[in-house]
């Protein structure tokens, strides 16, 4: 952790993530208004003392909506990444450990899937499964799986030929012990780091799906959906698009910077 705070990007990422975490944990309590309450007299207003970030087309307080929406937006990013990483890690570790033709077949299939862009892949899955937050999360997780599997596999392959693993093989250790105690603990570093960076992608894809009306449904306060709903009124009050937009960007940037700093701090070659 101290290593992360040594670099300016690491500090920036940590600060952004703390802001986001504050919104996720305390959002509903510190929000000044009910996020769904209509204030019909002050529709589409810019920032004022009564409404710090302005109001949307129904006169709902944007700050309150933002604070309430943090939870579902971040939960979506974390949930989708966790599912994708778990599935990818299992597939990747299996391919890396078993090797031979199993590895070849798995990797060629994954190569095919990787050729499809993440967003397109997600859209395809959502189209098949139908919309909604749960399905969107599943779709993002599935889209992430091939990439994570690749990383997990290459990480396992580089560890598998280390001499301490050979020493365990020469000792006659069981395969389970070698994988669980010798290979995995040393292979997780790159997987964890990639996962933190992926959270930002998940948030962005989630927001995109919300924007397209395929993720969270109104009156949810999910940030992507907030942008989508406010789109028509963008020219009358740019704040109602900018506020959730900036929030998405800040959260994504926070995870990205933090992930980069985490990667640097875990890599002994980058340490001085």
């Amino acid at each position: 952790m101290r290593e992360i705070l040594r670099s300016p990007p690491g500090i920036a990422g940590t600060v952004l993530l703390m802001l986001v975490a504050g919104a996720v944990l305390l959002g509903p309590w510190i929000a000044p208004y009910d996020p769904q309450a209509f204030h019909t007299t002050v529709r589409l207003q810019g920032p004022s003392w009564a409404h710090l970030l302005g109001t949307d087309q129904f006169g709902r307080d944007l700050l309150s909506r933002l604070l309430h929406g943090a939870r579902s937006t971040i939960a979506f990013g974390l949930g989708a990444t966790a599912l994708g990483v778990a599935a990818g890690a299992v597939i990747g570790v299996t391919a890396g450990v078993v090797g031979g033709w199993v590895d070849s077949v798995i990797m060629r299939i994954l190569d095919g899937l990787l050729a499809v862009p993440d967003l397109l892949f997600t859209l395809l899955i959502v189209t098949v499964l139908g919309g909604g937050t749960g399905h969107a999360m599943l779709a993002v997780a599935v889209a992430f799986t091939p990439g994570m599997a690749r990383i997990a596999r290459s990480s396992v392959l580089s560890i598998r030929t280390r001499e301490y693993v050979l020493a365990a093989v020469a000792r006659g250790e069981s395969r389970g012990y070698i994988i669980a105690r010798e290979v995995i603990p040393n292979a997780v570093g790159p997987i964890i780091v990639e996962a933190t960076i992926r959270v930002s992608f998940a948030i962005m894809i989630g927001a995109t799906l919300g924007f397209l009306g395929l993720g969270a449904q109104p009156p949810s306060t999910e940030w992507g959906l907030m942008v989508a709903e406010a789109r028509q009124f963008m020219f009358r009050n740019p704040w109602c698009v900018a506020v959730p937009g900036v929030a998405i960007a800040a959260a994504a940037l926070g995870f990205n910077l933090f992930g980069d700093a985490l990667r640097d701090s875990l890599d002994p070659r980058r340490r001085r």
Partner: protein
Amino acid sequence: MTDVPVLDVRDYSLRYATTAGPFDALRSVDLTVRRGRTLGLVGESGSGKTSLAWAIMRYLPANATELSGSIRLSGEDLRATSAREILGIRGRRISMVFQDPSTSLNPTIRLGDQLAEVLVRHRGLSPRAALEEGTALLARTGIARPADMMRRFPHEASGGEKQRVVIATAIACNPELIVFDEPTTALDIVTARQILDLFTRLREETGVAALYISHDLGLVSRIADEVAVIHRGEIVEQGACRDIFRAPARDYTRDLMAAVPRPDVRIGTPDPDPAAPALIDLSGVNVRYGEPSPLMRLLRPSRTVVQGARDVSFAVRPGELLGVVGESGSGKSTIAKVLAGLQDFSGTVAFGGRRFAGRKAFDREYRRRVQIVFQHPDGSLNPRQRVGEILSRPLKLYGLVPAAGLDQKIADLLTKVRLPPDFATRYPHQLSGGEKQRVAIARAFAAEPDLVICDEITSSLDVSVQAAVARLLVALQRETGTACVFITHDLNLVRQLAHRIVVMHRGDLVDQFATGDARAPDRHPYTRTLLDAVPTLVMAET
């Protein structure tokens, strides 16, 4: 007479800023190299010898601070020169030859172009003239078909050929000084010897001054006029080569010299009973790498198979230490992997009255009785496990001690390899290279084996640590009566330790003899080449 030395380093100190605080890499270093002379700079890893080379080349990392002193090249202070002027000095007046020719050449540029580049840049030759001059330079370094070599890419040349190209580049502009940073360490014994001969010849021809950095005292004693011994950033002793090696004044130099393996001083255990039945007996062991599958054979029938070991047969008696020597790629590590059950093979291995016909036939009993210690102590210990856990594995796996006695047994093992028992709670990265290798040895001996395979266990260690590890191994052998297959390229060391030696060359076992007969006239010609190539410490008899 105004005899200005080519290189004159005075009171030079260098400090690195690290996350662990400031680190003094060089402390008040004084060095002088005169025209046509070679100064050997000897030190262990981390002693600051490479930092000094970079300081002379004016190529220091951003976290380095120069605290004091001057570096003068023929009287001109290099610390005072601007970055622009340095570009004109590097390559033209000072050049450098690096340790590993496979990484110091750009793999995407033809050798000839890399050599000609220096000539175009510093001597202003036209590209065509530079190529011609380059060919002539290559011819001087003893390359048989220089014009042909100029057109090749680095991967099409051998290590020795590449190092010749690097040396040709270094002498291309008739520099005043050449810095050699361990130029033979990455090469095979025989090739290294040829490069050394080339170095000596070129020095006589060109009269260039040289700073020769090395950890190998034996080698430096052969080629240097003067020697400086560096220890933790300080020059502890400096003087004429002959004087220092005859009568070292400082304890550190004396310890360093005592650690250099000398084939005439035996430290091994007494010879085992020659009549005893063999403990392990290899017969007709073959290893083939890259064997194509039946499908691949149909698709690409011409695919080449590399023969790692060809029809290798030898035996080891109980308590014996068998040395296996050869260059890299000779198949000695392949044999280690076969014995440790890490490599598929054909042929038979007979051990303890049982015969095994392949890797899969080895059972847990065999694997307990035959243990392996690897070359790199950094790689052979799991970085996420504490030393105690690492040592407990073989004990638990083979059920050698009851759970209650585990901690005591680990403490005993650590004491046995001369490490404090509280090391059990440390992680490998908190240990030095020598300490890590001791832990690896302790792990092998924890299984109470009958045979320990040591695959180059001393080659990545410093000379002084090397000697201590070798002595430890012999002491353990004496205590436990364990036999050992000691694989190394260090002929001096193996002649101190081994009872018998086998020599491997390109997968074949070419020679097999008792250590005392190493110089006997009926040795295989290749054995003789190897023995002649190794530099031993030149020392006046005391």
